[in-house]
C-alpha cells in the first residue's frame, strides 16, 4: 500500500466555555476539514504561519489530542478509534519531535533518564545493562558521544537537545515521525546539521516524515510534497517543485513572495511581490466563506459567502480557491 497514513476530513475544535455553568459559547476551529495522504518513505511537508493549526494537527496525529471528527487510516487499516482509545499503542507507530528544545526535554532529569522513559514505558528493555546498551546505541545514531548520558539539558546546546529529542523518538522504532518545527529555534548552521542527520536517518531507517514548519525554503529542500495550511484548512497541496514553480493559491503566492532570500537567483525565482495585507485572524472567529478572503488581493464576491471546495488540478495538485476553475 503506497500510503502509510491517510487523513480524511479531520477536525479538531476546542470549545470556549464561559459562565457559571461552563456553557460552550464558541469554538476554536484549530483544524477544520483537513485531508491528505502520506506515502511510505516520503517527507510530507506542512507549512503555515502561527494560528494555522499545524501544531494542533501534529498533536492530534500523535494522539495527544483526540480528533473531534474525521478518519485516520494507517497502513490501510482504520485507526481512528484505536488512537482515541489507546494512544499508547499508537505511539509505537508514530513519534513526535517537538519544536522548542528547551521544553521538550525535562530540565530536571539527565539524558539517561530522558531516553530511558520510552524503553520503560513499552517494557522494551528490562535489565539495566540492556537499557544502557540501547541508550548508547541511540546516542550513536544521533551522533552524540556516549558520555552525554550524565548531562542535564541545560548543559546542552540547542542542536544537541534536538538530537536527544530525535533519539527519544527513535527509541520505539516508529514508522512515522512527526517533526513539529524541529529546527525553528536553531541557528542556521546548526539547522543544516540536524536536517542532514534527519536525512540520513530517513535513508537508513526508512522512516516517513511529516515535516511541519513555517519555513518554506526549508521545505523546498527536504519535502517531496507540501500542504499549505491557513486557519485550519489546507489551501493548496502539491509536489514541492510544482508548488514553487506554479503556485496557484493567493496565500501560497503571498508566502513565497515574502521570504527573505539570500541571493539574486532566488529573488528572480520568487513570484511577483504581492502587497501582503492584514494579519491572520483568530481561529475562534473564522471569516465566512473562504477563510483567506479578508487578506486576499484577488478576492471576488463569491469568496465572501461561499467556502471553496478542494479542486484537483492534476492528480497530485489540489487547490481550495474560487479563482481556479
Amino acid at each position, binding site marked *: 500500500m503506497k500510503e502509510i497514513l491517510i487523513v480524511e476530513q479531520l477536525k479538531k475544535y476546542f470549545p470556549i466555555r464561559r459562565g457559571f455553568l461552563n456553557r460552550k459559547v464558541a469554538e476554536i476551529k484549530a483544524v477544520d476539514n483537513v485531508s491528505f495522504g502520506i506515502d511510505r518513505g516520503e517527507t510530507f511537508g506542512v507549512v503555515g*504561519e*502561527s494560528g494555522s493549526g499545524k501544531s494542533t494537527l501534529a498533536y492530534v496525529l500523535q494522539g495527544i489530542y483526540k480528533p473531534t471528527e474525521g478518519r485516520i487510516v494507517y497502513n490501510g487499516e482504520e485507526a481512528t478509534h484505536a488512537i482515541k482509545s489507546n494512544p499508547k499503542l499508537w505511539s509505537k507507530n508514530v513519534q513526535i519531535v517537538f519544536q522548542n528544545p528547551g521544553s521538550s526535554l525535562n530540565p530536571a532529569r539527565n539524558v539517561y533518564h530522558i531516553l530511558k522513559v520510552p524503553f520503560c514505558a513499552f517494557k522494551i528493555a528490562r535489565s539495566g545493562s540492556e537499557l544502557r546498551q540501547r541508550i548508547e546505541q541511540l546516542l550513536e545514531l544521533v551522533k552524540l558521544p556516549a558520555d552525554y548520558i550524565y548531562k542535564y539539558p541545560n548543559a546542552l*546546546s*540547542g*542542536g544537541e537537545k534536538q538530537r536527544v529529542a530525535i533519539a527519544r523518538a527513535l527509541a520505539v522504532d516508529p514508522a512515522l515521525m512527526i517533526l513539529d518545527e524541529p529546527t525553528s529555534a536553531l*541557528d*542556521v*548552521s*546548526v*539547522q*543544516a*546539521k540536524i*536536517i*542532514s542527520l534527519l*536525512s540520513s536517518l530517513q535513508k537508513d531507517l526508512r522512516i516517513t516524515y511529516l515535516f511541519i514548519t*513555517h*519555513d*518554506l*525554503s*526549508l521545505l*523546498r*529542500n*527536504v519535502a517531496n510534497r507540501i500542504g499549505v495550511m491557513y486557519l485550519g484548512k489546507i489551501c493548496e497541496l502539491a509536489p514541492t*517543485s510544482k508548488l*514553487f514553480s506554479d503556485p496557484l493559491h493567493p496565500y501560497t503566492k*503571498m*508566502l*513565497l*513572495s*515574502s*521570504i*527573505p*532570500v*539570500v*541571493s*539574486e*537567483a*532566488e529573488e528572480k*525565482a*520568487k513570484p511577483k511581490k504581492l502587497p*501582503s495585507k492584514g*494579519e*491572520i485572524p483568530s481561529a475562534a472567529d473564522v471569516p465566512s466563506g473562504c477563510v483567506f478572503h479578508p487578506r486576499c488581493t484577488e478576492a471576488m464576491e463569491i469568496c465572501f459567502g461561499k467556502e471553496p471546495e478542494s479542486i484537483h488540478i492534476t492528480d497530485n495538485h489540489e487547490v481550495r480557491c474560487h479563482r481556479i476553475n
Partner: protein
Amino acid sequence: MILPLLEVKDLHVEFKIYEGELKVLNGVSITVKHGEKVGLVGETGCGKSVTMQSIMGILPCPPGKITKGNVVFKGQTILSIVENEFKGIKATGISYIPQDPMSGLNPVFKVGTQVKDVIKFNRRDSERATGKRIHETIMDAFKKVKLPDPERIAQTYPVQLSGGMQQRVLIAMALVTNPELLIADEPGTALDVSIQDQILGLLNELVLKENVSILIITHNLGVVRTLADKVYVMYAGNIVEEGSTTDLFEDPRHPYTRGLLASVPKITGGGVAEGIRGRIPSYLNPPEGCRFHPRCDHAMSQCEKERPFLFEIEEDHKAACFLCKGD
C-alpha cells in the same frame, strides 16, 4: 570628511564567572554613518548581544568589563576605560527596538500611555511638552508606522493587538524621541514571515523618510540582505567579514560566511548543506590565533598561531582570513 555617527573601536569585553574569565569580544570594530543601514549578523553566542549592550550603555559591569577599545557616538565617547575603570553613559539619540513585542510592552498599561512615558522621560528639547503636543507626537508616530486608526490604538492594551501591530507600536516608541540611530534587535523574528515582510518594508521606508540610521542585529541572513546596505559578520567575538550587502552575499570570502550562506536553504532547491563542523568555541579558553580555525576546512598552520586582522579584498570589502591576505 564627515564623522561617522557611531564608531565601535577595537572593543574587547570580558565577563567574570565562577570558572574564570570569558573573553567574549575580541576586538570588534563597527562603523555606522549617517543615513546608513548596517547589519550585524551572527549566530547565537557570537557576541552580538554584548556588542549591542555596549553601544546602548547597558552592559552589566561587573561581571562584564572592557579591557580595550571604546565606543564613540556623534563624536562623544560613550564607553571607554578611564583610569582603569569602565566608564559608560547612555547616549541620547540612540533608540532600541526590542525583539519580542510581547515582552517589550507592559501588559498592564495602555499603549498610548507607554508611548507617552517614553516622550516624558526622554525630552531632549527644552520646550515644556504640553499634553496636546505629546498627543500630537504620539499620533504622528503612529501614522508614520502605518497603524490604522491611531486614536483607537492608543487606547488599547498590548494584548488586544496582533503581533505585527505590537511591533509597529515598538517602532513608534523608538521614533518619538527623534533618535539618530535605531538599533533593531532581530526585527520580525518573532513574527510570521508575511508580517515580517511588512515590518521590514516599513523600516526601510522609515530610514529614508526620517533620516535615521539603523543598526540591525540578527542571525537571519535573509533579513539582513533585505534591509541593510552594509553588513558585518560576527563569529566568536570577532568581526570576520565586512562589506556592502551585494559584495558579501554575491562574493563571500571568509570560510565562515561561506559556510553560513551555504547552510541557508534556498528556494531554488539544491538540498541542504552539511553545515559547519564543530561548535562555537568556549570563551573561557578560546582557540589561539584565528578563533574559527578549529572548524575551518582551509585552516593553515599560520591560522593556529596568529590572529588574522581584516584584510582588504576590494574597497569596503574586508575579511579576517589569511586566505584573503594580499588580494
